[in-house]
C-alpha cells in the first residue's frame, strides 16, 4: 500500500488556490439530497457541520456531552494564532508557516502547514463577525500577545477563555442551523463504529447514553472531529470524557493511524497532589509572556519561594535558551522542567513542580495590568490551590495535553477509507512532532470552516449518483452485532477491579515509558505490561448495571478497552522511531547538551499504521516527507 497525500501541483503559495479552483462542486439542488454525518461538536465539528449545512447539505451532528457547547475546545485558554501582522513586527504567512514547520521539528507536510497559515487571517475575520469578543486596544483595534516558539506577536485572545469564546461562536452558528432544520443534533450520543460499504464510509453506529439504545445512521460521507486522546495518560489536562474510541474504531475498519505516540506534554499544568486525583488543570502558556520559570539553585530546598534570594534561583529556561527564554516551545520547556525535577531541584510537597513567578512583571507593570491580562487564570489557581499567585509564585508541572498524532489524512483531510474525513485534533496533519501554542484552536477552526466545505464537496460531487443506503443493509446489522457483543463482554466479565483502576495503571505506564522521555528498553517493557493489563481487563473488570440504560461505568469501560489497544500502538510507534524529534524524545538519541537528535536520513517520514486484526502486530506504512521550500535545520531556540 502506497500513501498518496494528493498534494496539489504548483508553487507552495499557490497550492490551496489551485485546489479550490479545481475542486468539483455539487449544485444546490443536489446538495439537499446528500447526507453528511459529523461526529463531535468541538471547534472542528461544529464549524464543519454549520458550514456544510449553510451550503445546503443535510447534516446530522453527534456529541457525547449534554450540549454541543461543552466539547473540550471550550477549555482552551490562551489564544489563536493568525498571520495578520497587526503588530507590524515582521509577521507574514510564510513566517508563520516556517515557525510551525520548525516548531513541529520538520515532521509535517509543507503544503498542509502553509495552508494553515494562509487561512489563519480569514478565521479571525469569521470569529469577529460571529461576535467573539477578542481583546482590543483602546483605539478599537484587535490586540495580540506572544506565544511560545515564535518571535512575533500573532496570538489573538479573549482573556484566558479564547477556546470558550470561539466555541460559542461555532456552537451558535450550529444552533442557528439546527433551528433552520438543516442540522439534526444528537447530544449524549457516542459513536461506537463506522459502517463501511463497498469500501466507502456510509454510516455510523451510535449509542444513546441516556437510554442505552443502539442506533444506526447512514450518510454519503462521515466526518470525525472527535478530538485528541491525551486522556489515555489518565492524569492529563483533558476533560474526563475525551477519548480515542471513535478514531480507534475507524482505525480497526481500515483508517490508518499516524504517529500516535506524539503527545504534547504541556509545561504549565498544576502538579499532581495525590492518588485520588482525576485531572491536571492547565495554566495557559500565555502566562509565560510575563511569568518567569525557576527552581532553587540548591536541591531539596525547604525555604518558601519568597525567602529564596534572587542569587539562589535558577531561571533555567533563560539560562539554557537565551533567545526565547521563558517562551521556549512546549516540548523543550517540559523536558527542561523534567530534567530539573529529576535532578532533585523540584519544589512543592511532592517535589514535582517548578515555580512560575510574576513578581518582576507585577513590579514593572502593576498588579492591575497583570490582573486584566490573566485575572481568570489567577482566580482559577486560587480556587484550586487556595494560594494567591499575586503574592507567591505559582507551582507548575508538565502534564499530558495534546495529540499531534491521530488518523492519517491526505491534503483533503480524508482518511484511507474513502468518504471518511478526520478534522481537528483527531487527525495527524499540521503540527508534526510538536504543536506550537495557539495553533490548535486555529487548526480545528480552519479544518472545519475553510477546508472541509471544499474537500467534502469535492468528494460528494463523485457520489451524487449513489443512493441513500438503508440502515437495514447487512453491513449495518453486522456492525451493530459487533458493538453489542463488545458491550456485553464488558458487562459479563463481573470481576473485582473498576474501569478506573485499569485507566490509572495504564496512565502510569505511559507516563513512565512513553511520556516525556522514552527508551528502547522501557518501551519493550511497557508493551509487555500493556498486553498483560489488557488480558486482565477482560478477566477481572467489574461494570455494574445493564447496557440498555444510562450507565456511566459502561461508557468508561468501553473507552478504556480501546485505550488499552491504542497504548500498545503508541509504544510500538515510539519504539520503531530511532531518533528524537519534537515531543518524541528517545534517550538513546540526544546531543551532549541533552537536546533532541533528529535523524533526517532514516526517519524523515510520517509513520502510518495499519490494523492487521486482533493480536497481530500493526503494519508500518511510511509516508515520506519532502521539503522543497525549507531546509531541514537543527531546531535551535538558544
Amino acid at each position: 500500500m502506497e500513501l498518496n497525500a494528493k498534494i496539489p501541483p504548483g508553487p507552495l503559495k499557490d497550492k490551496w488556490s489551485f485546489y479550490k479552483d479545481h475542486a468539483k462542486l455539487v449544485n444546490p439542488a443536489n446538495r439537499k439530497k446528500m447526507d453528511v454525518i459529523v461526529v463531535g461538536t468541538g471547534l472542528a465539528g461544529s464549524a464543519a457541520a454549520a458550514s456544510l449545512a449553510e451550503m445546503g447539505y443535510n447534516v446530522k451532528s453527534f456529541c457525547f456531552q449534554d450540549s454541543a457547547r461543552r466539547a473540550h475546545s471550550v477549555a482552551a485558554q490562551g489564544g489563536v494564532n493568525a498571520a495578520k501582522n497587526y503588530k507590524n513586527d515582521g509577521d507574514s504567512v510564510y513566517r508563520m508557516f516556517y515557525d510551525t514547520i520548525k516548531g513541529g521539528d520538520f515532521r509535517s507536510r509543507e503544503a498542509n502547514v502553509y495552508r494553515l497559515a494562509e487561512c489563519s487571517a480569514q478565521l479571525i475575520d469569521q470569529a469577529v463577525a460571529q461576535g467573539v469578543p477578542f481583546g482590543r486596544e483602546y483605539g478599537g483595534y484587535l490586540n495580540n500577545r506572544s506565544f511560545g516558539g515564535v518571535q512575533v506577536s500573532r496570538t489573538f485572545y479573549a482573556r484566558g477563555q479564547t477556546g470558550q469564546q470561539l466555541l460559542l461562536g461555532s456552537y451558535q452558528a450550529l444552533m442557528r442551523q439546527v433551528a433552520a432544520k438543516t442540522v439534526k443534533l444528537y447530544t449524549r450520543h457516542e459513536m461506537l463504529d463506522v459502517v463501511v460499504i463497498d469500501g466507502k464510509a456510509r454510516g455510523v453506529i451510535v449509542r444513546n447514553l441516556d437510554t442505552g439504545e443502539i442506533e444506526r445512521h447512514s450518510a454519503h460521507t462521515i466526518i470525525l472531529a472527535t478530538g485528541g486522546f491525551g486522556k489515555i495518560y489518565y492524569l492529563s489536562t483533558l476533560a474526563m470524557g475525551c477519548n480515542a474510541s471513535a478514531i480507534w474504531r475507524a482505525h480497526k475498519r481500515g483508517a490508518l493511524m499516524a504517529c500516535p505516540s506524539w503527545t504534547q506534554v504541556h509545561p504549565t499544568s498544576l502538579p499532581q497532589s495525590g492518588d485520588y486525583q482525576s485531572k491536571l488543570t492547565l495554566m495557559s502558556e500565555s502566562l509565560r509572556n510575563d511569568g518567569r520559570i525557576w527552581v532553587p539553585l540548591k536541591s531539596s530546598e525547604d525555604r518558601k519561594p519568597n525567602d529564596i534570594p534572587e542569587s539562589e534561583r535558577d531561571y533555567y529556561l533563560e539560562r539554557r535558551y537565551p533567545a526565547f527564554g521563558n517562551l521556549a516551545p512546549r516540548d523543550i520547556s517540559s523536558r527542561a522542567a523534567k530534567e530539573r525535577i529529576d535532578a532533585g531541584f523540584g519544589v512543592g510537597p511532592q517535589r514535582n513542580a517548578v515555580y512560575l513567578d510574576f513578581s518582576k512583571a507585577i513590579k514593572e507593570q502593576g498588579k492591575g495590568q497583570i490582573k486584566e491580562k490573566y485575572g481568570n487564570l489567577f482566580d482559577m489557581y486560587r480556587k484550586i490551590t487556595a494560594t494567591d499567585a499575586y503574592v507567591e509564585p505559582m507551582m507548575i508541572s508538565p502534564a499530558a495535553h495534546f495529540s499531534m498524532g491521530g488518523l492519517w489524512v491526505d491534503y483533503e483531510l480524508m482518511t484511507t477509507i474513502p468518504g471518511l474525513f478526520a478534522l481537528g485534533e483527531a487527525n495527524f496533519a499540521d503540527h508534526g512532532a510538536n504543536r506550537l501554542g495557539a495553533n490548535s484552536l486555529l487548526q480545528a477552526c480552519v479544518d472545519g470552516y475553510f477546508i472541509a466545505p471544499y474537500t467534502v464537496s469535492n468528494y460528494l460531487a463523485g457520489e451524487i449518483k449513489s443512493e441513500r443506503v438503508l440502515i437495514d443493509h447487512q453491513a449495518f446489522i453486522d456492525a451493530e452485532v459487533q458493538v453489542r457483543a463488545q458491550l456485553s463482554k464488558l458487562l459479563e466479565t463481573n470481576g473485582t477491579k473498576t474501569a478506573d483502576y485499569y485507566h490509572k495503571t495504564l496512565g502510569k505506564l505511559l507516563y513512565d515509558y512513553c511520556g516525556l522521555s522514552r527508551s528502547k528498553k522501557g518501551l519493550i517493557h511497557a508493551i509487555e505490561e500493556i498486553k498483560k493489563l489488557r488480558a486482565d481487563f477482560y478477566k477481572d473488570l467489574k461494570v455494574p448495571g445493564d447496557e440498555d440504560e444510562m450507565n456511566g461505568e459502561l461508557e468508561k469501560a468501553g473507552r478504556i478497552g480501546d485505550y488499552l489497544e491504542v497504548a500498545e500502538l503508541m509504544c510500538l510507534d515510539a519504539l520503531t522511531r530511532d531518533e528524537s524529534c519534537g515531543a518524541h524524545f528517545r534517550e538513546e538519541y540526544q546531543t551532549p547538551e541533552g537536546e533532541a537528535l533528529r535523524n533526517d536520513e532514516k526517519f524523515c517520514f510520517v509513520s502510518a499504521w495499519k490494523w492487521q486484526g486482533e493480536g497481530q502486530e500493526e503494519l508500518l506504512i511510511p509516508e515520506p516527507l519532502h521539503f522543497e521550500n525549507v531546509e531541514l535545520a537543527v531546531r535551535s531556540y538558544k
Partner: protein
Amino acid sequence: MKLYLKIWRQSDAASQGKLVDYELDNVIPHMSFLEMMDTLNEELVLKGDRPVEFDHDCREGICGQCGMMINGQAHGPIANLTTCQLHMREFKDGDTIYVEPFRALAFPIKRDLRVDRSAFDRIIMAGGFISVNTGQAPEANGIPITHEQAESAFDSAACIGCGACVATCKNSSAALFTSAKISHLAKLPQGKMESRKRVLSMVKQMDEENFGHCSNTEACEVECPQQISVLNIARMNWEYSLSSVLKK
C-alpha cells in the same frame, strides 16, 4: 476525614426519588468535590451497586456540565465556583452533606444528579447568534470596537450555561442565562442589527420552556460561577420593552 452523605437517587424522570445515606471515610481535604464523589462511586462499583450518576466533564470550571445542589446551594457553599472547583477543605470531619440535582420544572431529572438542560440550547436556537455564514465575514479590524465595549461584551459572553442561576432562583427563572446572551450580542456592532428580533424571540422561547419569571432577588448573580451581572437582566428588560413598543 469522615463524611455522612445524603445523596438524591432517582432511576429516571418518571420514578420517585429519595435521599440515600452513605458514609465515606478517608476523605482528603485536597480532593475536589467530584473526586470525593469518584471515591464513593469506586466503593459502590466494587460492592456491585449502581454508582451515582452525575454530570461532569472538563473539571476546570469552563464546560458548564457539572452542577449539584450541595447543602441546598447551587455548586455548594463557596460563591462563584463550579462544583468541580469546590474542594473538600471547605468541609470538616464529621459533616453531613446533602447532595441533590439542580431542580427546576424546565430541567427534568434524567437519573440521580443528572438533569436535562436542553431548554438552554433551544433558547440559543431562538436567536442567540449573529446571522453570518462562513465566508461572509469582512476584515476583522474593519469593525472597530472600543476596549471597554469588547470587555463589557466579554463579561456577558463568559456564561458557561451550567444552570446554577435557574437552580438557585425561587422562580426557576432563566433570566440571567438568556439576558447574558442577549447583552453579549447587543453590545457589539455586529450583533446589534438583529437585537430587536432576537430579544423577543429568545424571551418567548424562555417562557415556553416553563422557566419562571424574574422577581429581582439577585440570587443568581451570587451563585454564578462566572459572576454574570444582574444588570444584564435589566438590559434585557429594557431591550424587550423597546422592541415590543417599536414592533407595534
